[in-house]
């Protein structure tokens, strides 16, 4: 089969590889009908996530048709159409039972690697480095899905792929970002980053009752999407001072909650941006956290900072004094996708949201390298690339 493989920093290639087999009794093999490139795949692409190896298959957003199930899978059968959540979760351990699926204690066979970096290990993730399991990803023709009786969500035949594909990651991720803000009537929410996850965070904040959402980015086409498609007010951080603008837009209070949908590769103008770039390039810090710093400083007293952008390791100049002295709450995590899939599918079915609004490019799988490149370089107003095997 063909699969998108990581070759080197900024090089992916679609290669011929053997087809996956059932390895565990709770596995399923899925023939992929739609898959997507995630913003977090760009961190792999840029070589910023450790333990990615030459030849690893990438991709953690995918859906398709069940071809085969292991003896332990009773709720799925060949022919079922499913969306697969990106965290792999057993459903039985203590944390799965608390619905903290991205922290499953049984799905990362390389947990010891993650423990070295993070203290404890989160769940395994498809196509996202060896320290998160060494599982092949879904930017390919077929994928093996462990714990298939827990993760995959069956999709009725009448809903097209494009409306449900993003239940695998970015819609629940954006939704959890808003959910973690504990939004109250009247709340104003600020969202850093108008990539696909940021767009869903904006939409979700409205779905959860936010009064207003203010979105921050620097690409006019992304800000336009945030304003026209997601309904946000927008700030271009290259044109105005974000802190002052947010203060002014909120009557001097600051946003009630701030969502960081940027993560470890934040851009910043001026000295602090150069500082982060040099330190990241020389390995003195792993993450450029400009958006997070700004979100913390901007949040109102006693507010919540919700982090859904991916961070890998260590950041410098973290304004923890601001967090402590102003009673801020930080909530974060890889999305517990399995918790959100079903209710969000219902919202899609009811027509409350059509997640396909973020798609700007549809490419055949073979053009995955071009997809990575244009997504990274924001060419052709790229927001979201969907690949079809």
């Amino acid at each position, binding site marked *: 089969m063909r699969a998108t493989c990581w070759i080197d920093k900024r090089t992916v290639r679609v290669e011929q590889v053997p087809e996956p087999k059932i390895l565990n009794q709770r596995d399923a093999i899925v023939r992929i009908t739609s898959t997507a490139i995630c913003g977090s795949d760009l961190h792999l692409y840029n070589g910023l996530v450790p333990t990615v190896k030459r030849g690893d298959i990438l991709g953690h957003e995918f859906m398709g048709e069940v071809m085969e199930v292991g003896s332990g899978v009773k709720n799925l059968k060949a022919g079922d159409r499913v969306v697969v959540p990106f965290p792999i979760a057993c459903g039985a351990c203590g944390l799965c039972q608390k619905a903290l699926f991205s922290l499953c204690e049984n799905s990362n066979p390389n947990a010891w690697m993650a423990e070295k970096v993070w203290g404890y290990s989160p769940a395994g993730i498809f196509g996202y480095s060896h320290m998160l399991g060494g*599982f092949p990803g879904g930017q390919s023709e077929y994928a093996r899905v*462990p714990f298939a009786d827990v993760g995959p969500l069956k999709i009725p035949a009448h809903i097209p792929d494009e409306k449900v594909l993003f239940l695998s990651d970015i819609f629940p991720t954006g939704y959890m970002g808003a959910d973690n803000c504990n939004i109250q009537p009247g709340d104003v929410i600020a969202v850093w980053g108008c990539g696909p996850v940021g767009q869903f965070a904006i939409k979700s904040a409205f779905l959860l009752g936010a009064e207003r959402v203010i979105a921050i980015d620097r690409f006019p086409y992304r800000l336009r999407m945030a304003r026209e498609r997601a309904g946000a007010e927008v700030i271009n951080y290259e044109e105005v001072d974000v802190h002052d603008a947010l203060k002014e837009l909120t009557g001097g209070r600051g946003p009630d909650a701030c969502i960081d949908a940027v993560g470890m590769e934040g851009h910043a103008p001026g000295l602090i941006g150069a500082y982060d770039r040099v330190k990241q390039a020389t390995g003195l810090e792993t993450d450029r956290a400009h958006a997070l710093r700004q979100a913390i400083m901007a949040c109102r007293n006693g507010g919540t900072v919700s982090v859904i952008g991916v961070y890998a390791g260590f950041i410098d100049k973290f304004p923890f004094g601001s967090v402590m002295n102003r009673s801020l709450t930080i909530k974060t995590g890889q999305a517990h996708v399995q918790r959100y899939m079903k209710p969000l599918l219902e919202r899609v079915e009811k027509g409350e949201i059509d997640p396909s609004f973020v798609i700007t490019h549809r490419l055949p799988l073979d053009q995955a390298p071009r997809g990575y490149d244009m997504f990274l370089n924001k060419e052709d107003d790229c927001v979201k690339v969907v690949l079809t095997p």
Partner: protein
Amino acid sequence: MATHGTDPDRDRWLPVRGRATDAQRLAGGLGWFSIGLGVAGLAAPRLLARLIGAPDRGKTPAVLRAVGVREIASGLGILSQPRPAGLVWARVAGDVMDLALLTSALGSRRARPGRIVAAAAAVAGVTALDALTARQLSRQDGATVAPSREHAVTVRKVITINAPREQLYRFWRDFTNLPRFMRRLESVETMGERRSRWRARGPGGMVVEWEAEVVDDKPNELIAWRSLPGSRLSHAGVVRFTPAPRGRGTEVAVEMAYTPPGGTLGARMAKLVGQAPEQELQEDLRRFKPLMEAGDIVVSEGVLYGVARPAR
């Protein structure tokens, strides 16, 4: 609130790490003392010789340098080993050697008997302290895994499993199940209620077999076992099942000790070729957990084939 150690059983099987006992603190002091003495012997052997009343030329400086090297090695060993009982015993042997050297120095023409006797008295004092410390450390080591046996390797790990302890106890008590999650074990056959025959792969693919017997068995609480005398591999283990607070399942604490064929040296060699026993036990428990919770141990292509893609 209960504090660690109020449960006598818990203390017996799982002494809390990180809380140094008097003997451990004393061993630390002795380690630093060794290093200090060693550095003095190496750097200024003549001065040291004069101090203890031995001749400051001839063979003495060379002997003192050698003693210095020994002291530094023993000091570093004691400070770096989690269980330094053996090394402290080695110090006792070194002390006896030093006393012999001092006695022989008395025969030299240039010796100053007064100083030598004073030095010997000091060494005798240190010997007594070393012996006392070594005895206490050995006792503590022996108490952690079933009775009084010195093993080359002792490891402890604990994991929480979301399952009732009755189930975990039952699974473990049937030793034939252990190879399902302990990667070194090839097979365990049971021979009656308490006896079993174990077969394991050692470093380099070497196969070791031994017989073991259950030495303690409290249903749903703990199982302790030990290899029979005369086995090629001397081994003891205990697993303890304790309810975790408020429906969090069961805390499974495992302690294992063994002396592989080749004794302490064999254990060192195994460590050198990358077999870290602590990590092994941790990984085995990490396989036990999904087997009990999820009915299977998930594998990934990355682990199986080295790269995250299927292989033919």
